[in-house]
């Protein structure tokens, strides 16, 4: 087959793409233009992209599990987690035991204006209190509002997806999200 000049081939590529975008349907429906379907773009405010479950959108705090151990705050490269807490006495776990001393979280703030979304805090948390959720719509007109306090972080907990199953060959255990 003789070589087509590259100039004509190039025109073919663009025209083919235009055709695919405009007429994405196959079969007898081919001639019905449906660019909404053929285009790869997401028309954002009208339709929303669903990020994968593991996407690092925003950090959710499961407050009951948090012991204010400060590990996340200390391992944060950006110094954007602020924790304050105090100790209280709690009743024993079972009858006959002694009263325990537990940590109460007074303040758990993450400053998303500083956060680099590295996920180190979620990794180091030994008590399963921090989780990633793929939510991304929390931009604010004022930068100070990007500081999420523990109530706000707690609200994200509802959007945390379950951990994904692993591909065959994995020895990892699938973790559970506390609900």
């Amino acid at each position, binding site marked *: 087959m003789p070589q087509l000049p590259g100039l004509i081939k190039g025109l073919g590529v663009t025209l083919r793409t235009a055709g695919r975008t405009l007429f994405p349907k196959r079969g007898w429906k081919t001639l019905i233009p449906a660019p909404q379907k053929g285009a790869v773009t997401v028309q954002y405010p009208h339709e929303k992209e669903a990020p994968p479950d593991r996407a690092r959108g925003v950090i959710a705090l499961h407050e009951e599990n948090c012991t204010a151990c400060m590990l996340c705050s200390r391992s944060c490269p950006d110094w954007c987690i602020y924790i304050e*807490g*105090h*100790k209280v006495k709690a009743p*024993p776990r079972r009858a006959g035991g002694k009263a325990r*001393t537990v940590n109460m979280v007074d303040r758990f703030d993450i400053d998303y204006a500083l956060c680099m979304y590295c996920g180190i805090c979620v990794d180091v948390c030994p008590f399963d209190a921090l989780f990633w959720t793929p939510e991304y719509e929390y931009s604010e007109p004022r930068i100070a509002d990007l500081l999420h306090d523990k109530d706000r972080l707690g609200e994200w907990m509802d959007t945390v997806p379950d951990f994904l199953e692993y591909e065959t060959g994995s020895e990892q255990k699938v973790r559970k999200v506390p609900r």
Partner: protein
Amino acid sequence: MGDQPTPEEIPPSDEEREGLLARLSESLGEILVDSHLRPHEDLWLRVRAQNWQDAARAAKAAGFAYFGFLSAIDWHIAPEGRYEDTEFDAGLDEEDDEPVELDASTGYAGGDTRFQLLMQLYSLDRQLGLLIKADLGEDMTVDTLRDVFPGADWHERETHEMFGITFHGHPTLHPLYLPTDFEGHPLRKDFPLLARQVKPWPGVVDIEEIPEHLEAQLEAEVMAAFEAEEGGA
């Protein structure tokens, strides 16, 4: 060719690099001060700073024609610039009680002075890398390598502005990254990193303890409530 074969495959010695070291010590002669070899990993040479250019030429003649990078190490341990308020350093202080001002001894191929030049070259035929170091004296001056490796030009400019090392014979030693009127040499260890000093580390906060005089009282209250509940149930 893998640089890091699995442990059972590692032969006791790395003949290629040893042979290379022998050849280079021969051609370098007394220019070579010290050397260090990590089998199957890398070869370090330390040369005299006044013969820096000669060493580069000798390495190039030995087949190391590919210029990797050139930089410097500041072996000074200064309080500024480190994460001095953090817990990380607290642990360190306990380990090394005597304050070590200058510690180049941990570096491979040794070192005597605060600043050490560092250059990495490749030999494409041998598929080997070579790291060359040189101790810098008080004058902080060394000959430029521009004539040997044209690529050293920018690396020397960067090293000049970051460490304050002068490269003799380099015509354009003006700053590469920093603004023209910038003062100081940022990669020196005594150059403070402001970003870490203007803001307190949030990790220093500790959990507020229960005041001692209230502890017994609170515990009694909690236990009373617990027992009342148990009894009720």
